[in-house]
């Protein structure tokens, strides 16, 4: 048996054991608890008991992760290129900010955003509100952007120095070399890291419950007040599974891409 087959067999065994355990437990009286979970599932997913309209729940976590990732990607690109800049006036501050954000606990950053960002902001007579959702997006985007800037830096620096030499000898300027030669190649190498980061961010959206948005955890906590102690375990297992089912395929896909681009010079 090859290593890959062994691994597959072990994973299958674990999955079967979990299924068996659930079945045995359900037969022993767990079924009524699962029925409670099933009843509440539309609420956990969408934030409304009937499943429509979508006001929160797990779908809000997904929206939050997408919005944060969009902001983080834009911010991280700027930060990543700034940490690569030749001029120390640009490089050093961005390096400092990047390291500060990368080494802060995400939960602390979320709390900080909660209190630092105002309820609304007036710019040229225009009132820009900062609802909890926006604060959560910014709070999660900041550390993700810092980590993404490191992904960019790593990808750019992994491009062989001969590419720089060749482009310089052809008369390209620094900006042109990035645009035409380095970034198109580095982009391929960034994708796996970017996806891994997204999976991490999705998991971290559970932290956003501290901002008071109606995400899956907030809703769970509210509705649990009406449930018995025993059923709580089943609810949390369900939430864990939701996150796992969403993130695991992304992680797997990212790893495949990583292997595909490894050591390839095409």
């Amino acid at each position: 048996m090859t290593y890959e087959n062994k691994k597959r067999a072990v994973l299958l065994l674990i999955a079967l054991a979990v299924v068996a355990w659930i079945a045995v437990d359900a037969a022993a009286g767990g079924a009524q608890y699962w029925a409670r979970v099933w009843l509440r599932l539309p609420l956990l997913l969408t934030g409304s008991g009937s499943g429509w309209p979508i006001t929160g729940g797990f779908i809000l976590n997904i929206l939050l992760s997408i919005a944060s990732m969009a902001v983080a990607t834009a911010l991280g690109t700027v930060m990543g290129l700034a940490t690569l800049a030749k001029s120390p006036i640009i490089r050093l501050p961005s390096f400092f900010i990047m390291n500060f954000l990368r080494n802060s606990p995400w939960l602390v950053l979320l709390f900080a955003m909660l209190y630092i960002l105002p309820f609304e902001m007036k710019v040229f007579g225009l009132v820009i509100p900062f609802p909890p959702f926006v604060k959560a997006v910014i709070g999660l985007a900041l550390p993700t952007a810092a980590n993404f800037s490191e992904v960019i830096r790593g990808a750019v620096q992994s491009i062989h120095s001969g590419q720089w030499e060749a482009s310089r000898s052809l008369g390209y300027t620094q900006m042109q070399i990035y645009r035409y030669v380095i970034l198109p190649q580095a982009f391929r190498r960034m994708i796996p890291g970017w996806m891994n980061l997204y999976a991490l961010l999705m998991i971290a959206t559970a932290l956003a419950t501290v901002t008071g948005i109606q995400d899956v955890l907030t809703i769970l906590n509210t509705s649990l007040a009406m449930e018995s102690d025993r059923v709580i375990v089943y609810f949390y297992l369900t939430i864990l599974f939701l996150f796992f089912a969403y993130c695991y395929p992304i992680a797997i896909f990212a790893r495949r891409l990583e292997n595909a681009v490894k050591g390839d010079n095409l």
Partner: protein
Amino acid sequence: MNRSDALIEIDGIRKSFGTFEVLKGISLNVSKGEAVCIIGPSGSGKSTILRCINGLIPINEGFIRVGNHRVHEMRSEKAMRPLRHQVAMVFQQYNLFPHRTALENIMMAPIQVLGHDKAEVEDRARKLLAKVRLSEKADSYPGQLSGGQQQRVAIARALAMQPDIILFDEVTAALDPETVKEVLFTIRQLVEEGLTCVLVTHEMKFAREVSHRVCFTDRGMIVESAPPAEFFDNPQDPRTREFLGQVL
């Protein structure tokens, strides 16, 4: 040689990497249409000389003039641009752009750097591919080409800039003996057409047949410089003799 006639004029250049002095006062003149081979042991500064000529490596001391450009006075990449237009370079590791096809590799710089018309550049690129006998590989990516083919595309890429001078940096060192021939054939053609070439090479036979002059470098100095027949048959310096005794 009349110094003012030389296309490349190098006088007393010194270059250190950290505390290690790679070039200890190199002087060399190359006239238009001349092919000069630089040979010597590893680490003697051969490749560094080439990189100083087109400004890839700034020098610590000395004088470099290429055509009308005073290279040692240039500070920014922008100022180097006209120089880079005049001087092309081919590398040991080919350094083709892996995300572009052979044809695109050749067309990129003339369009993006020189701002030439796209249709005209494509025409030129296809002619150059024919010249290096790779017309059928126009749409292949570098990863799909053999080392010798990649190197010939790299030569075509350098030629597409319509340079007056080409610098060849050990262009056959990474190739197997079979493919070396294809590349040397292409270079010989260029020399015969009268293109000014400075070649760093380990191919002694090729240096003897193709070049007009051979320079021997050792420990950061040019020890001996002579026409190939004289250089190989009657070397003057004991260090040249020792080196040739080892490699021939």
